[in-house]
């Protein structure tokens, strides 16, 4: 009898232990303090903008939140060349205008989208915005604008005149050689052939044969939750100069039909050529290594090779975004890919993959705790928020916040576990009505704990308390004072600007100007040596989820002396800045070969 009693006690004890462990982890005890504080100031700064979902074919209306659950996006760039970062923000509803918020250098923003001619781009049946990118595509010293869409994407040449304070863009879509029609969900610029022109990767979501305003069939969805390959095709367009592109997807080996949501470009394997890291919804991540595909001129002989054996297929998931950073201060990049975590239903966890230093190229997944479990996570960005010399991480999340008492997960689980032929038919999906789906999730502000890849969520203590459904997030120093602010685009919600009230601190920022390389220095690897730290950052034009973050690089330095900064340009030129002045942005021009 006593034996049985003992076992009963053990049984109960185990249940109590499980409850204790799970609730301690699950509640993620909010931090009581934060080394910095965010204040939401969008209205005060003139950033009044609301994202709205598109109106599509009426047969899709019952599950429109699923069909059009994305589209809130931001692109940060210097539209008028005045050294202050401006914001292009998109909505997805036909007839509504995107915003071009120009930074006045005094802490405010003015929407000049109408004057610039880049606002009224959303038209039902022709195309609605899903994201945008800034880049100097014609090498004339200013930032052109590419708006990727469900439908026909648009390219705008920058014809602004800084001297006259005019801001004007010309639509050059018809002559640009873009893809005539695709449901593009992500894009990035990269100079894959090192010719100094930025080439364009486009990630397809729905098949390009699908016109979402006039569908021919309701069988347009994914046919597998984790291994789907019936999505839109990915494209790769080579920049031929003069704002014209050529589709070279087949030639370079990029034509996957997975459901691509995120992409990041960098020389991850350290061979001097820009690689691509792709995150796919309903599928595995993909690393495309830039390789020679034939001897001769790189313009026609470079391509991409999908790398197997890296363990990326070991767990297919719901890849939402790709973000690059350096969390260890050892100079090796990390690739952060967001996924879905919903207790009870699906605990996929995000991936934080470190490029293994030395030896054969390998990636080690070190995501754990707060970096792994961020709810239904979308965009992310790395940046040193407290200027302590370590990159922190912000992650936005939540799918749909409507009636908090009605949850769509149960409805989704019915088809999600069924056979693909049932799953892909939108007609089989239960109408969303007012149901929430992983709603009311707070943005994570993950502070780097400086050892062992550990981060801690301090969002609430830092003042980030909104519960909108975030999609895109970017850290950017809009005031050029060294503190990184946080800009968030919310799906069917307002654009939010969290101003970082951190005062003081030591930092340095660099704006790269390429000569042999592309003018924006996209793809350059910038490595700062300070104290005993070696921190690397890569210049990107498109990463995270439908985001272009601050095009400059920004290093917090803590209390450490800055020894030097090394820039490895995409051209292969290596430039070293010795003991550069800190607490300022500095323009760095690529030296001659």
């Amino acid at each position, binding site marked *: 009898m006593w*034996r049985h009693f003992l*076992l009963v006690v*053990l049984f109960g004890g185990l249940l109590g232990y499980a409850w204790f462990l*799970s609730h301690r982890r699950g509640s993620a005890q909010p931090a009581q303090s934060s080394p910095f504080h965010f204040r939401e100031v969008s209205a005060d700064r003139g950033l009044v903008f609301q994202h709205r979902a598109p109106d599509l074919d009426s047969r899709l209306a019952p599950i429109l939140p699923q069909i059009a659950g994305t589209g809130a996006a931001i692109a940060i760039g210097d539209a008028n060349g005045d050294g202050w970062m401006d914001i292009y923000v998109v909505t997805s509803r036909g007839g509504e205008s995107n915003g071009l918020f120009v930074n006045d250098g005094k802490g405010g923003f003015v929407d000049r989208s109408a004057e610039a001619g880049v606002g009224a781009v959303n038209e039902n049946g022709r195309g609605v915005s899903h994201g945008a990118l800034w880049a100097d595509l014609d090498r004339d010293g200013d930032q052109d604008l590419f708006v990727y869409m469900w439908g026909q994407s648009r390219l705008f040449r920058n014809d602004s005149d800084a001297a006259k304070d005019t801001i004007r863009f010309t639509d050059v879509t018809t002559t640009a050689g873009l893809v005539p029609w695709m449901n593009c969900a992500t894009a990035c610029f990269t100079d894959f052939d090192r010719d100094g022109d930025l080439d364009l990767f486009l990630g397809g979501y729905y098949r390009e044969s699908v016109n979402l305003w006039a569908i021919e069939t309701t069988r347009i969805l994914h046919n597998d939750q984790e*291994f789907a390959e019936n999505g839109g095709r990915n494209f790769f367009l080579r920049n031929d100069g003069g704002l014209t592109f050529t589709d070279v997807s087949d030639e370079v080996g990029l034509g996957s039909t997975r459901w691509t949501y995120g992409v990041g470009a960098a020389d991850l394997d350290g061979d001097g050529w820009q690689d691509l890291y792709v995150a796919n919804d309903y599928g595995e991540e993909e690393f495309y290594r830039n390789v020679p595909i034939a001897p001769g001129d790189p313009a026609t002989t470079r391509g991409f090779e999908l790398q197997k054996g890296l363990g990326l297929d070991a767990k297919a998931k719901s890849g939402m975004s790709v973000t690059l950073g350096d969390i260890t201060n050892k100079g090796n990049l990390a690739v952060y890919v967001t996924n879905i975590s919903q207790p009870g239903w699906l605990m996929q966890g995000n991936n934080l993959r470190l490029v293994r230093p030395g030896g054969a190229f390998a990636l080690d997944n070190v995501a754990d705790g707060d970096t792994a*479990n961020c709810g239904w996570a979308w965009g992310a960005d790395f940046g040193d928020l407290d200027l302590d010399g370590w990159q922190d991480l912000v992650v936005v999340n939540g799918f749909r916040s409507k009636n908090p008492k009605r949850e769509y997960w149960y409805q989704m689980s019915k088809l999600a576990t*069924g*056979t693909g*032929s049932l799953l892909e038919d939108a007609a089989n999906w239960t109408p969303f009505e007012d149901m929430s789906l992983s709603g009311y999730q707070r943005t994570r502000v993950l502070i780097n704990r400086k050892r062992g890849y550990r981060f801690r969520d301090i969002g609430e203590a830092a003042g980030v308390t909104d519960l909108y459904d975030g999609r895109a997030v970017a850290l950017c120093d809009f005031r050029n004072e060294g503190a990184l602010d946080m800009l968030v685009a919310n799906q069917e919600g307002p654009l939010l600007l969290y101003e970082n009230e951190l005062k003081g601190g030591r930092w340095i920022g660099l704006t790269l100007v390429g000569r042999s390389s592309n003018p924006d220095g996209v793809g350059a690897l910038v490595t700062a040596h300070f104290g005993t730290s070696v921190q690397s950052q890569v210049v990107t034009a498109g990463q995270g989820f439908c985001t272009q973050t601050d095009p400059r690089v920004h290093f917090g330095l803590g209390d450490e002396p800055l020894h030097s900064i090394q820039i490895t340009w995409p051209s292969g030129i290596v430039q070293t800045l010795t003991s550069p002045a800190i607490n300022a942005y500095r323009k760095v021009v690529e030296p001659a070969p």
Partner: protein
Amino acid sequence: MQNDAKSPNIFARLTPKHLVVILITTILVVGEWQYHVIGGYPRLVVALGVCMLTELVLSMFVLGRRVPLLSAYVSGTSLTLLLKPEAGLIWPFVVGAMLSILSKYVLRWRGRHLWNPTNCSICLLLLVAAPVTAILSHEWSNQLATNLLLWAYGLVVVSRAKVLHVTLAYAASFALFAALRGWMHAEDARTFASTFNAEIGPLTGPMYQLFCFFMVTDPPTTVSTKRGRIFVAFLVALAEHLIRVGVEDGVSWLMPFAPAPALFALFFVGPVAMVVSLEWNAHRAKLAGRSRLAPTT
């Protein structure tokens, strides 16, 4: 069942437990090879190791003898396949494995354990460790061919193990109730196909394969008669149907069961059926004993 130890036919010498072991091992190997369903080998090693160790220790502690570890092996493997906690967490497999085996020694009635061990531990973890746990959903892909292959293979094995009637009774009952729910949700006959498709969907998924072949058929936790087992399978499907309808209607106390209606249905119905069956059998045995003792006239 041909399990004559002297039979030259190896297949004929296999017991139902051996067949289950073979089936679940095949599913594990194929699933990992094709879809990486385990989520990391430490999970498998821990679940199997803890299950077997716990079984070994408890059998010595309670029974004073070692029992075969095949059952613990099946529990550990099932736990690895079905439990999908937060990335990086191993402790749910330790606790889940211990709960599985402990349930056999703690939750007993008339000398029999009442719950399928894995069913018991997973349901309990889903309730007490809700913030960090989830169960298998679509990690096996949604390919029809894969599901059909597993169904076919599973059916052969359960047929050989003489529990095919349980699997079929549950599947047929599920389909019946799915049609009922589909009818309840349909606006008209035209939309019935769509609503029925949604309701029947889970039956074609991986979790239900494991459920149909391993849990609802588990011999030690099912009633003794064939008719009784079919009836219990129907009751499990009925309970699942009621959970699903309640969840659809937003009944708040049913929400914790929403991620795994089938598992919770068995969790509630199985032991009750077992207790009723054991009591009925005891009652009948008692009556039979009395009649044997009664003086003949």
